[in-house]
């Protein structure tokens, strides 16, 4: 190397400035705003005032937080159940159909939540959705609307989560040692039995970490609960948006954001500890 080591850092200056100014500072501002205190002119100034967290601790918001956590845990479990067998089969497809499926899954995963909520709204509507098809086929007498409802929220959130579940499970399942399965088959296990006794135990760490990731991802959903649910299905993310955009209450929105952050972080820590300590 002819260059002295210090010059290697020079190239990092622009990137450092960008990350520092536009990530570290805004992030710190959320934390500071969450403990700010209101001033007389309706603004707020930095202090160490916990009143916004006090407000969170009323039953309405605590119940919302518990609901969000419960809903996202449910979505994580369902989407893993739906996606795991598919991902397992996908790793056994030929390279061509594997690529085509991966491209489609990526395309659906990237599709705006707004568009997915819209699609499900149409799908579950009275005039142009599943109800209409059922009426047409003759299963139901009269088409009916299936949204807004809790079922609609769950169906659409699972739809959002499944592509992520597939991509999260894909690396572990495609690296799965195929000789293990062959060995179990040689020893007389049925395909079903070797799936449950070999594939699933081997993939367990990947299943747990994918579940946690999906949980955090689903916590971020904003549009589906609003469009397909009633206010009682709103999650923390929806409430944060509502506080920030429509009530202009940045301090309370920040406090809720900190709660969301702590909720995500504690689930990640809890599950990784639980999964780590249980290795056999």
């Amino acid at each position, binding site marked *: 190397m002819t260059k002295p080591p210090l010059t290697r850092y020079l190239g990092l200056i622009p990137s450092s400035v960008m*990350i520092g100014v536009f990530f570290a500072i805004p992030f710190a*501002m959320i934390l500071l705003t969450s403990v700010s205190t209101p001033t007389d002119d309706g603004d707020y100034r930095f202090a160490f005032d916990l009143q916004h967290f006090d407000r969170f601790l009323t039953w309405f918001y605590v119940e919302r937080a518990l609901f969000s956590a419960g809903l996202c845990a449910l979505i994580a479990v369902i989407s893993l159940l739906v996606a795991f067998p598919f991902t397992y089969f996908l790793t056994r497809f030929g390279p061509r159909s594997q690529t085509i499926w991966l*491209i489609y899954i990526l395309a*659906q995963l990237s599709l705006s939540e707004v*568009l997915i909520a819209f*699609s499900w709204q149409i799908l579950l509507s009275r*005039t142009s959705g599943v109800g209409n098809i059922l009426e047409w086929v003759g299963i139901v007498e009269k088409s009916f609307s299936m949204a807004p409802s809790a079922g609609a929220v769950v169906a659409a959130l699972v739809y959002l989560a499944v592509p992520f579940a597939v991509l999260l499970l894909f690396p572990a399942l495609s690296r799965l040692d195929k000789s293990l399965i062959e060995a179990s088959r040689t020893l007389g296990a049925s395909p079903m039995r070797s799936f449950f006794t070999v594939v699933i135990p081997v993939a367990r760490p990947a299943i747990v970490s994918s579940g946690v990731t999906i949980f955090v991802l689903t916590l971020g959903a904003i*549009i589906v609960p609003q469009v397909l649910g009633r206010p009682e299905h709103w999650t923390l993310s929806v409430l944060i948006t509502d506080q920030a955009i429509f009530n202009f209450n*940045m301090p309370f929105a920040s406090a809720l954001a900190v709660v969301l952050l702590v909720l995500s972080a504690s689930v990640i820590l809890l599950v990784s500890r639980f999964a780590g300590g249980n290795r056999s």
Partner: protein
Amino acid sequence: MTILRRTYLAIFALYLLGPVLVIAAVSFNSKKFLAFPPRGFSFRWYAEIFVANDWFSSLMNSLFIAFVSATLAVLIAMPIAYGAWRYGLRYAKALFALGIAPFILPPVIMALAFLIFYTSVGLYGSMLSVLIAHAIFLLALPLVTISLGLESVDQSLIEASQTLGANNTTVFRTVILPIAAPFAFAGFAFCFVLSLNEYIIALMTVGFTVETLPIKIFNALRYGYTPVIASIAVLFLLINITVFSLIARFSNLSRILGALD
């Protein structure tokens, strides 16, 4: 087993593709009302995207933001990934970890952070604010893809070219860049697609000044349906499929998705 497997795969495919097929059917409908089974066949709702001024300008806003912020994200990511890989700089590795964080956090947290930050520095609502916000939010993608690309560069190639007298610039240009470029492109493409589809950060930075397509669609949803949204959904899905097909064609998709070591 085979029957069970086929049935499961069929149901899975139906669940994934069903909503898309219904939307596609609706988008080719010729009536003003959404109808399924569709009545008549027309491309009028696709034409509408490009003819109706407001839809078209939203589309252009979204494409512009996606293009610039993806470029910016790649430019920020490149030196970090390079510094971490080539010189093993601990500082670059720390920046790498910091750069991944915005993408992992629930997006509403970053959106709120940008909202508070931009209002206090007076950039709120400016085009610049959303360009930078998207670049920072999506920085993780080029960071990861470029690093993967750099890791696939053979060290002996670098040594060989240095032995032959190439300086650092020449090594970068002739050895590293050709191998890493497809991965940088993949990072760009991922950013482009995700920026195009992103809603909440755009809403909290420029929601009341610049209308991106996802924002416009969400606003339109509240005032009732229009089949134009269905045609946009199909258009966006096609854009996504095209971009990811390009990545699969010119870069290594299974490597990026972690299937290969």
